[in-house]
């Protein structure tokens, strides 16, 4: 049902107030006596004047125009939209954590330091690595830190001539962007017809000029790289390092570990496999785990324990340095810690097993009406192609928009780029089978609609607060702020 809204600025009423501070109890100071008058603003910033009630109405109203995973299914491939446990919200709001200043003495931060130290240990165990830095603020940030660590390692070993990084053609965009941001030339390696890394291509491209290979396993097609041991041997054989993009870790917890596969550096997305909320686009966290030989290069500081107390170790001469201020997204880390403790070893393994089962179950039921990109057992996600529907006049985009009318957030579309009209579905373990069945039914119904009533699909969505948007206009004539003050 269509409904327009006003911006907060448009609700402003001159003189209205939504706050109250205690009256000033120290002598009032005339600003012009302590600050040079040329440094003072002549005009206040254009902020609204509203009451507290207005604020609540406005933001509550905005929330009602949103769809979160608490409301329903969110089968976004590679995003792992699993349930965000509410107890995690409670523990991350404990005043002992929220009220801690990052620079308060370590002696009175022992609780936080202990949590960080333990989380390092837990994530290292789950990934099969030696140590984990909890500082990176997001997956892409962790990738950058990880690639920087690899770069520093090579330089330390007199291998600074290695100026290339191998990226797969199915890789998430952050992979080549990160390698380029770190100063590497990226070389794309083609997938074979089974959707995995082409070993011959790898042997051809791997050389003493290459710093390493970035891989996701299972890859972005939801397929397990069966040749991973051989891949690791090829890369290591030429002195390169293997980087693991942990976006798909939800498929393998307790089943296999990137460390055991031969990876040297891994990043995890805590807002994916480890249940921390997406928040509409952040904050997340992207810790990086490394094998022993790369530990000295991790970002600064690390948390250590001397037998009696926990402390920050800044004395790390080989570290890549600081990549962010303070110590990372601490309250996000608290949530991940709580999640791992809630799940326990059995829970983590069951989560991955169920995620993989859910995905295969759905793939099996959808394959009759939608083309399957690769005919293999999938892991926790799978990729369909909307090519059949495209030939009938409706694109993957149309299908996605029509799903909105059925009350679902659509799967990931048009990624990975190596599959035409890609639809990537990830039905996480926190979804019950009846929800999967309802989604399957909707997909099958839409396949019918494409054949019998394509106009309905092409003009979707019909039931959302706004219809399909003119994205061309938004890009051609960017209006990025309100100016009607």
């Amino acid at each position, binding site marked *: 049902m269509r409904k327009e809204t006003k911006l907060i600025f448009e609700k402003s009423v001159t003189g209205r107030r939504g706050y109250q501070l205690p009256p000033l109890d120290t002598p009032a100071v005339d600003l012009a006596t302590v600050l040079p008058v040329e440094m003072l603003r002549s005009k206040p910033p254009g902020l609204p004047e509203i009451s507290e009630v207005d604020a609540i109405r406005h933001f509550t109203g905005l929330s009602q125009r949103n769809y979160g995973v608490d409301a329903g299914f969110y089968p976004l491939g590679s995003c792992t939209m699993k349930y965000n446990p509410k107890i995690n919200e409670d523990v991350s709001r404990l005043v002992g954590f929220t009220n801690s200043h990052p620079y308060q003495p370590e002696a009175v931060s022992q609780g936080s330091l202990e949590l960080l130290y333990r989380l390092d240990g837990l994530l290292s165990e789950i990934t099969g690595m030696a140590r984990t830095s909890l500082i990176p603020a997001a997956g892409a940030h962790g990738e950058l830190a990880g690639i920087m660590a690899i770069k520093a390692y090579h330089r330390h070993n007199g291998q600074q001539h290695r100026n290339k990084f191998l990226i797969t053609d199915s890789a998430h965009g952050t992979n080549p962007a990160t390698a380029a941001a770190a100063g590497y030339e990226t070389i794309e390696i083609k997938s074979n017809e089974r959707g995995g890394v082409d070993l011959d291509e790898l042997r051809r491209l791997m050389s003493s000029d290459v710093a390493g290979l970035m891989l996701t396993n299972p890859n972005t097609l939801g397929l397990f790289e069966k040749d991973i041991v051989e891949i690791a041997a090829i890369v290591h054989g030429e002195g390169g390092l293997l980087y693991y993009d942990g976006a798909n870790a939800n498929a393998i917890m307790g089943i296999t570990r990137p460390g055991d596969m031969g990876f040297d550096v891994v990043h995890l997305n805590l807002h994916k496999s480890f249940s921390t909320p997406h928040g509409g686009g952040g904050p997340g966290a992207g810790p990086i785990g490394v094998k022993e030989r790369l530990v000295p290069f991790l970002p600064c500081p690390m948390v250590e324990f001397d037998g009696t107390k926990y402390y920050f170790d800044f004395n790390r001469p080989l570290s890549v340095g600081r990549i962010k201020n303070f110590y990372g997204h601490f309250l996000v880390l608290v949530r991940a810690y709580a999640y791992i403790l809630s799940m326990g070893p059995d829970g983590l393994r069951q989560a991955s097993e169920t995620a993989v089962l859910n995905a295969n179950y759905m793939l099996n039921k959808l394959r009759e009406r939608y083309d399957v990109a690769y005919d293999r057992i999938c892991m926790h996600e799978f990729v369909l192609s909307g090519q059949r529907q495209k030939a009938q006049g409706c694109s993957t985009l149309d299908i996605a928009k029509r799903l909105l009318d059925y009350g679902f957030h659509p799967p990931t579309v*048009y990624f990975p780029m190596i599959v035409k009209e890609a639809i990537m579905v990830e039905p996480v373990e926190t979804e019950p089978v009846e929800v999967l069945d309802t989604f399957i039914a909707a997909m099958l119904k839409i396949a019918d609609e494409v054949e019998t009533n394509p106009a309905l699909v092409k003009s979707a969505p019909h039931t959302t607060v706004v219809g399909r948007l003119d*994205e*061309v206009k938004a*890009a051609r004539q960017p209006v990025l702020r309100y100016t009607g003050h």
Partner: protein
Amino acid sequence: MNIPTELLYSKDHEWVRVEGDIAYIGITDYAQSSLGDIVFIEMPALGSTVRMGGTFGVIESVKAASDLFCPVSGTVVNVNPTLEENPGLLNSDSYANWIMAVNLEDKAELAGLLDALAYKNTLK
């Protein structure tokens, strides 16, 4: 698919119109059609050098950004100012709206370009 016969073409879907020592360069009808609604074009700085086969700019649609590959070598003497404000003109008429003018370094390079028929054949 519109392919004017008086122009020369590159396999990267650019057209070239030579006027004396200057080559006017744009994108073909096929290119604008594949890109969809064009929202922005990044053009080279005046006076910069371009090389045949090298990139000279970026063209953006809502969902993609593609490099523009240069069909000739030389110095950029002019870029089309209307495209900054109105990149959609490339969709309306990709031949009337040239992107840049290059002072040709080596006219012999033109022999390596395709004529209308040869370009049409590459589209099969």
